[in-house]
């Protein structure tokens, strides 16, 4: 074990931790007597600067990752790199929204916890070993429980946090139980080692039990049905910047983990020698073992799309509506996750070459594209809800009445973000969906995935209804109260930038796609 390597590979995490300490130092030391506004702003800006430096550190850490002996613990590049940069950017955006927030007097602590949770996210995104995965997940989750409870004067916030914590603790137990089965089956905690062991021994009922336990654990993190029950309460009760963080950063990290697990089932080498006797088994045994998990994922995906979209129809609280829509979006993305380890084979000379289908790195990149853009849109949506909620005292649909008169900019942001979530072109949400579904169909055009894609598209038609319910109140129905709503200039500027990004990324989808692909396939 080489500590210099470890330091290099964990440079981004280190930067975030240092920034967290710096925030505490400045807030509790230097600015103890300063006004709350100054303290919030300085804490947020130090946090944002930390994220910026950590972004640089992701590139500095390079693609090598970190291994002990032959066992890879932390990966670099590809999924890890994209997800890590995504986590940093989205964390910085949620911190920008904090600048105008007033829910807490402990700004330094809040930002420090955010940065530490984000560091947990970075670890998850790169983890290649069950123990590292678990450490990262706990680091992230514990941060999220605290963030949820951060509005100390709000009973709802405390309630949301305790619910989140209880569900989270239980799902962590499931996950750990599942991991212990994997260890029992394979004698190793490394993802690659587990894959090789299972490829040798073939699928077994015990493996299915392990998969189900793991899906239960991770399904909680991404709020997939039937592990989604915490989401509406948490989204409703948590302070808005914390809810935005849960809806974006935590999702990115968890999906990156799912993608890492999926990718570990791709053949370890790009090509095999045709004369190798083990080849036949290699070809045939990776996919069947994965197919069981894929089936579980597809069932969860279909359930999430149906339950999420249908339950959202009945919501009167916009935060709960966003929670159920998040469930639905998790369902769409799980379709992509289930097809990650699909590959095509062709023979070149005496070698069999594996290729990921599609021109852009297959489903994994499509899911990354989706989760990054979805995360950004969700942050913006929570930002708008927060401003409206602070002005009207409620996040009910009716508090959006006449928003276009009360604050036209905010209404325009809401229009762009919600239409993007519904998947209306030329906004980025549409392109993300198209890209994802095309990748899924390209990997597997069988009747099962075709009908699931059809279900997903039909369900996004359903989703337009509830997004329009909010927009209808903002633009169509008469206002009950026409006093203008003022947003903090920093908040408004952030929201407008998010909306602009959603439009621009939708009009020029190739830019982000090319950037993701630049991390290598």
């Amino acid at each position: 074990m080489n500590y210099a390597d470890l330091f290099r590979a964990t440079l981004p995490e280190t930067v975030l931790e240092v920034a967290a300490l710096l925030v505490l130092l400045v807030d509790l030391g230097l600015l103890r007597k300063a006004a709350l506004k100054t303290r919030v702003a300085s804490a947020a800006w130090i946090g944002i600067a930390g994220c910026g430096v950590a972004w640089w550190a992701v590139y500095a850490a390079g693609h090598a990752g970190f291994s002990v002996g032959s066992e890879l613990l932390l990966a670099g590049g590809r999924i890890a790199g994209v997800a890590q940069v995504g986590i940093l950017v989205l964390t910085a955006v949620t911190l920008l929204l904090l600048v105008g927030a007033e829910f807490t007097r402990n700004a330094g602590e809040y930002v420090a916890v955010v940065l530490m949770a984000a560091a947990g996210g970075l670890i998850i995104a790169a983890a290649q070993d069950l123990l590292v995965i678990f450490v990262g997940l706990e680091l992230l989750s514990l941060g999220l429980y605290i963030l949820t409870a951060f509005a100390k004067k709000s009973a709802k916030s405390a309630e949301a946090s305790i619910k989140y914590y209880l569900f989270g603790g239980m799902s962590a137990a499931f996950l750990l139980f599942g991991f212990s089965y994997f260890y029992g089956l394979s004698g190793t905690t490394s993802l690659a080692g587990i894959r090789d062991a299972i490829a040798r021994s073939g699928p077994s009922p015990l493996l299915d039990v392990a998969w189900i336990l793991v899906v239960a654990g991770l399904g909680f993190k991404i709020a997939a049905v039937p592990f989604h029950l915490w989401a509406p309460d948490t989204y409703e009760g948590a302070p808005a910047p914390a809810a935005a963080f849960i809806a974006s950063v935590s999702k990115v990290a968890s999906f990156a983990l799912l993608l890492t697990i999926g990718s570990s089932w791709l053949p370890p080498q790009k090509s095999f020698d045709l004369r190798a006797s083990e080849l036949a088994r290699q070809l045939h045994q990776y996919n069947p073992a994965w197919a069981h998990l894929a089936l579980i994922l597809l069932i969860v995906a279909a359930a999430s799309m149906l339950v999420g979209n249908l339950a959202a129809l009945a919501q009167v609280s916009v935060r709960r509506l966003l929670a159920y829509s998040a469930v639905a979006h998790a369902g769409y993305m799980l379709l992509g996750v289930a097809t990650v380890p699909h590959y095509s084979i062709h023979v070149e000379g005496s070698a069999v070459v594996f290729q990921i289908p599609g021109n852009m790195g297959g489903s994994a990149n499509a899911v990354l594209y989706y989760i990054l853009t979805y995360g950004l849109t969700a942050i913006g949506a929570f930002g708008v809800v927060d401003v409206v909620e602070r002005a009207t005292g409620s996040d009910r649909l009716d508090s959006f009445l006449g928003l276009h008169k009360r604050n036209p900019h905010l209404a325009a942001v809401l229009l762009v973000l919600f239409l993007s979530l519904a998947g209306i072109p030329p906004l980025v949400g549409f392109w993300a969906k198209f890209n994802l579904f095309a990748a899924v169909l390209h990997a597997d055009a069988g009747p099962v995935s075709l009908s699931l894609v059809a279900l997903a598209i039909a369900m996004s038609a359903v989703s337009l209804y509830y997004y329009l319910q909010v927009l209808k109140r903002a633009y169509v129905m008469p206002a009950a109260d026409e006093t203008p709503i003022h947003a903090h200039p920093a908040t408004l500027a952030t929201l407008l930038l998010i909306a602009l990004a959603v439009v621009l990324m939708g009009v020029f989808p190739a830019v982000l796609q090319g950037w993701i692909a630049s991390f290598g396939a």
Partner: protein
Amino acid sequence: MLAWTIYISFAGAVLEVLLPKGKNALARWLALAIATAGLAIGVAGFIAGMGQGHVEIVNAAWVPSMGVHYLLAADGISRVLVLLTGIAAVAGVLFSWNIELRTNQFFAFFFALIGGVYGVFLSFDLFLLFVFYEIAIVPKYFLIAIWGSTRREYAAMKLALYSFVGSAMVLIGLLVAYTASGSHSTALADLAHAGLPVSTQMWVFPLVFTGFAILAGMWPLHTWAPTGHVAAPTAASMLLAGVVMKLGAYGCLRVAIALFPHGLDRWGFAYLGIGSWRDVFALLAVIGIIYGALVALAQSDFKFVIGYSSVSHMGFVLLGLMTLNQIGLDGAVLQMFSHGVIAGLLFAIVGRIVYDRTHTRQLAELETMHLARRLPFAAWAFVIAAVASMGLPGFSGFVAELQVLIGSWSTNPLWTAGAGIGIIVGVAYTWRALQMAFFSDVVPGAHVIEQEQAHTFAAITWPEVTGVALRAGVSLVVGLYPRILLDSIEPAVKALLAGGVQ
């Protein structure tokens, strides 16, 4: 050059949003300028394109890794429909002259819709076409929900959801066609030459055709149309009937029929004389023609009469498409243009000229108002529009419907017979509405005349006269000299038929 119709419209939408509040007159004149510029470009492009076939306008790689192109082009069909859109936009602005509520926002949504429509007609990449098609959905919702009348929120939501469900069906077809052809390109020409398996085409064709036909008002998925038309503000119902329904029909032709021609092949078995998707959709079209006409005959609301007449007339377009022969398809495209002009005129007279003065659309109430005497301009404009709508010679509807009937006769005379019944009922409902609304024979008593003289209606304004003259004139010119459009349509249809259909 034609591509500028799209850019000008979207730029216009942005400009209108940025206008300061309260500058309603400025917003109107700006809107008229933008719409006229669009029409001028459309006319110039149409004239420049005469005698030319398929012309590529812009072809840039949009998402190179996935083969998505920003490919704008025009053939005769596109040019005719762009021309129609230009006319509809100018007339729509003229008949929205009295909008006082959130005027700049109204025109912003209006031009976002118009831009999307121009885009659909000029896109030759399926992905791009789909993007424009969906861009057109959202503005419709807001136009109806904010500025509409009768049950506007219900109608707007119904229209938005019907459109979105239709486009979801199209999206599935798009994804299947794209992946089945190897995910190389979404250009229409490449997809058409991809050689999709017949078994795939057999199920994708009805899916995509139905998806588009929802917007074309195909029975029994037409129910958004009458409620939507009635609830919409006049300009929006003119656009709905005038161009939006054509988007659906155009998609059926350009995408469903051109990309999945084998979906129209015979199934190999027949039940009750129906042996292919072609028979199914032709039957639905004929039912739509007769059903729409019969329901229009029974309406008490003037605008509903026109709304259902649109369903009936669009049935001719769908029937023309299903003939799959030169003359039938020519007729279908010409009927798109003709109905776009005439239905817009009818909605303008009913929704703007009459309703804004009488504040009722109930035929029973209009019957007591002696409108022929009090609003002679409206009465005579409606007579012209009604004659055109009934399909009398000399107006565009006659040429179009005649061609559809000839085309369908050579395919299946039973279809022609059904459509013929629809024409006769069409005369009946138009005549009934005309008589009840304007020429009632209730003799007014002396005191009624006094009363009416005391309450004169507002004078007819210049935008109304211009708008009516524009539309009636276009219908008359095309009716008297249909070659002006047919010369463009025929080669395009021929190329389309040669490109795969039978």
